[in-house]
């Protein structure tokens, strides 16, 4: 698959169809494959494809340094591709100007990442070119994940759990910078008139930040897991997004990034919404 990926990239660059190919590069043994931005056809051989291609490369499509390079081709797995669907639905990318190279994915990480166990998008659905064939059938039902263990706790236990976890947050914002759907020009955490979220990495500042980060991704997050992987303090941030994803599916039957035509939850409304807590 790596060979076909390199050929496709070289062709796209030589034909001038794209000015940059965003893919994965060679990594040191055991390390994650680092994203690389190829602008010259002869560099296409730097592209790699293996089980350590974790990063969601859709994150580069909204960055001004990359947009300045011109038309882009992006290598995506099935889960990353869901981010493209959301970005297009939120008018952040021009899908027609984008070349999507979809890679059939058997799951990343050894042992395999939790998100891959329950993956239904092994074969990318909207790519311009799909590389690789789906060897195994779709994955079996997912085992108990972190969210069930979290929700099994009592509210007080959960509160204590998050207080300990957020105590390690240093406000490096890696969780924001790696997320393809966190593309705001100036994040609410960087605004000071008024200060909604304290810049300090105090318990108060950390709770305010993580509540806002999780909720600004409500009914948008596609569960690529990059925020959890990027956190240098090992905080299981993805649990908050999983909780919201579960709620979104139960309450609105909506799974972000799956159906390009479906109306976004917060972007639309309906008198038929059911709830039991508003008196």
């Amino acid at each position, binding site marked *: 698959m790596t060979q076909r990926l390199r050929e496709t990239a070289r062709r796209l660059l030589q034909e001038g169809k794209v000015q940059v190919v965003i893919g994965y590069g060679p990594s040191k043994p055991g390390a994650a494959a680092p994203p690389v931005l190829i602008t010259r056809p002869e560099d296409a051989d730097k592209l790699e494809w293996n089980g350590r291609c974790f990063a969601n490369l859709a994150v580069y499509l909204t960055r001004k340094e990359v947009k300045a390079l011109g038309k882009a081709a992006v290598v995506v797995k099935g889960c990353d591709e869901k981010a493209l669907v959301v970005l297009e639905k939120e008018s952040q990318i021009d899908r027609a100007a984008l070349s999507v190279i979809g890679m059939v994915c058997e799951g990343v990480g050894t042992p395999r990442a939790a998100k891959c166990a329950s993956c239904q998008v092994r074969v990318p659905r909207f790519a311009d070119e799909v590389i690789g064939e789906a060897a195994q059938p779709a994955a079996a039902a997912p085992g108990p994940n972190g*969210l069930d263990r*979290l*929700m099994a*706790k009592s*509210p*007080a*236990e*959960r*509160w*204590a*759990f*998050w*207080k300990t976890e957020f*105590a*390690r*947050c*240093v406000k490096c914002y890696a969780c924001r910078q790696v997320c393809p759907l966190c593309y705001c020009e100036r994040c*609410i955490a960087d605004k000071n008139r008024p200060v*909604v*979220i304290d810049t*300090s*990495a*105090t*318990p*108060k500042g950390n*709770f*305010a930040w993580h*509540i*806002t980060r*999780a*909720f600004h991704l*409500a*009914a948008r997050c596609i569960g690529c897991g990059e925020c959890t992987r990027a956190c240098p303090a090992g905080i299981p941030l993805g*649990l*908050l997004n999983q*909780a*919201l994803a*579960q*709620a*979104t599916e139960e*309450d*609105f039957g909506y799974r972000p990034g799956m159906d390009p035509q479906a109306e976004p*939850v*917060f972007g639309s*409304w*309906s*008198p038929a*919404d059911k*709830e039991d*807590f*508003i*008196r």
Partner: protein
Amino acid sequence: MTAAFEPKIIAYVCNWCTYLGADLAGTNRLEYAPNVRILRLPCTGRIDFNLIVKAFEMGADAVLVSGCHPGDCHYTAGNFHARRRWMLFRRLLEALGIETERVHFTWISAAEGKKWQQVIGEITEKTRQMGPYEAYRELCVGQASACLAGSVESEAAE
């Protein structure tokens, strides 16, 4: 307990319905608990989830968010959008272990002065039983960074 605990309740209300409802309660001389501090916003659609978090940060023991009944919204769909937001936000609060019984959502129209009085009474009583919301307030005291269990010593609070 020193003085009896008087809960601090913050009410974010929409300008067109609930605020008028509360006003009606006033003109009808319907007495209701003074524990509530009313903040008027154009519509429940404008009531951002951060306002609820900010209320707890500043020491509220309960928060009420109230606006027009579905269909009555002055801006047609503000309350429908708000409803969707609250449906998901409550789940996030649950996942975080924040006491969702301290966050109340109601529809109160401009004619429901009585209902406003009832709702405020119920919330005040319920919150009085639950006691002050120490858990969240404790996060914000002294701004000591408890991050590394004392790596930054917590100063003697003033």
